[in-house]
């Protein structure tokens, strides 16, 4: 049983617990969906470990969960951007591009295997595109914050901490994802610590943002 408690699953389960405690009564649907998304993430992670232990491929599982990831993160950015402008077009364009790359990679799985041996059939190109897209969204959100005449109370801004976690994770992981698809990818020992660190950053920041959501709700009331 302890084999299921990895560095990643611990923080993901903790974040899911925070979401369950602090977002259950949240009135914003997108924020509430974080509970569902984190449940999917935890289930995927645990099932992937199970498959790995059983010596089976688990890339297909991540390829399914990436769809939920793209939908949830895009939905959150839609909600964040909407306070500043009508973000529907750019979010839909982002999702459309994601869908095109995803289908293209699923239909032609050899695209990367031509370069090097594929990592368990995982959609690497889609993942890289998604990382860059969300890093750009986060960066743009920060630009909007800087341009805005109003200042935010950073300490208690759920939106800020959510975007900060997302930015750190997707910006940082984009280089790792790119390294995975280059010919003869480096197999340095330290690389295996980077993604778990980024995971702790994103889920740590997200957990704090869920607490901030609760603060907002209780202080408004």
């Amino acid at each position: 049983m302890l084999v299921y408690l990895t560095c990643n699953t611990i923080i993901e389960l903790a974040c899911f617990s925070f979401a369950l405690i602090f977002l259950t009564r949240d009135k914003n649907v997108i924020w509430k969906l974080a509970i569902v998304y984190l449940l999917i993430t935890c289930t995927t992670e645990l099932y992937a470990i199970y498959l790995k232990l059983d010596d089976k491929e688990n890339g297909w599982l991540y390829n399914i969960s990436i769809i939920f990831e793209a939908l949830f993160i895009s939905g959150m950015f839609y909600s964040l951007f909407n306070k500043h402008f009508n973000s529907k077009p750019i979010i839909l364009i982002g999702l459309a591009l994601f869908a095109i790359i995803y289908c293209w990679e699923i239909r032609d799985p050899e695209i990367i295997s031509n370069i090097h041996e594929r990592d368990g059939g995982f959609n690497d190109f889609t993942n890289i595109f998604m990382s860059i897209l969300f890093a750009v969204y986060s960066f743009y959100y920060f630009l909007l914050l800087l341009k805005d005449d109003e200042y935010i109370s950073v300490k208690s801004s759920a939106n800020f901490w959510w975007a900060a976690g997302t930015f750190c994770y997707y910006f940082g992981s984009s280089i790792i994802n790119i390294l995975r698809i280059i010919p003869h990818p480096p197999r340095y020992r330290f690389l295996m610590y980077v993604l778990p660190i980024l995971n702790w950053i994103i889920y740590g920041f997200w957990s704090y943002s869920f607490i901030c959501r609760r603060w907002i709700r209780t202080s408004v009331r």
Partner: protein
Amino acid sequence: MDKDIREIIISSILIFLMVPIFVLAYIFIQNRRKKRYIEEKALMKLTFESELLKTQLEVQEQTMQTIGADLHDNIGQLLSLTSLTLNSIELDNEAKARQKIDAAIDLTVRSIKEMRLLGKLLQGDQLVKLGLSEAIRYEINWIERSGQHTVNYLNDGELPAASSPDKDLVLFRILQEMLNNIIKHAQATEITIRIDYEEGYLKLAVSDNGIGFDVADVTHHDAGMGLQNIKKRAAIIGGATTISSVPGAGTCVTVLTLYP
């Protein structure tokens, strides 16, 4: 070669991990600056509003003083004279009585006129709502009634239709302070008020032919409180004040501000 690649990879990973930290730190700093700026702006607004309220009260006080003085010196005298004239009527002498009744009627009509003017003045800051130019004309009217000063009013450049009531009030109060200074200290016989409006800037200049003073000397002592007030008032509407004076050759005080 392998060492070079390893260094490149480590550097790029470090850069990608460090950039978000710098971005977040930059946002923190900028957000704090924005907060400080907004707080300072709110404080300035509060100061402006409190100065405006003070100005309003001072304009009202000045109006009350003018009314008090006018009731005592003008209307009071007219009514006393009317009473004396009516008391001195001898009903036996009809021709003389008619003459005195006519004189009393004339005095009463003058009193009524004076009362009407006072009534308009009683509106206090309402006067400023008629426009800066109109308010200045009323002010000049009251100064000229004393007969001690000749006032020239020059208005160059049409003031914009969309005025700023707050700025008008402050400018009107500045003018009152300038005129008070002249009446109290300058021993002048001639006052010139000039308003120039050009390309969004309004220049209010008040000069006199009085005894003048040493600007450096006065502004360093308490005696320059009135002038300090003028400078402070002008500053709250973003205006600049210039005081030029030569002992024996009169004074000119100018306020230049964006308008409206």
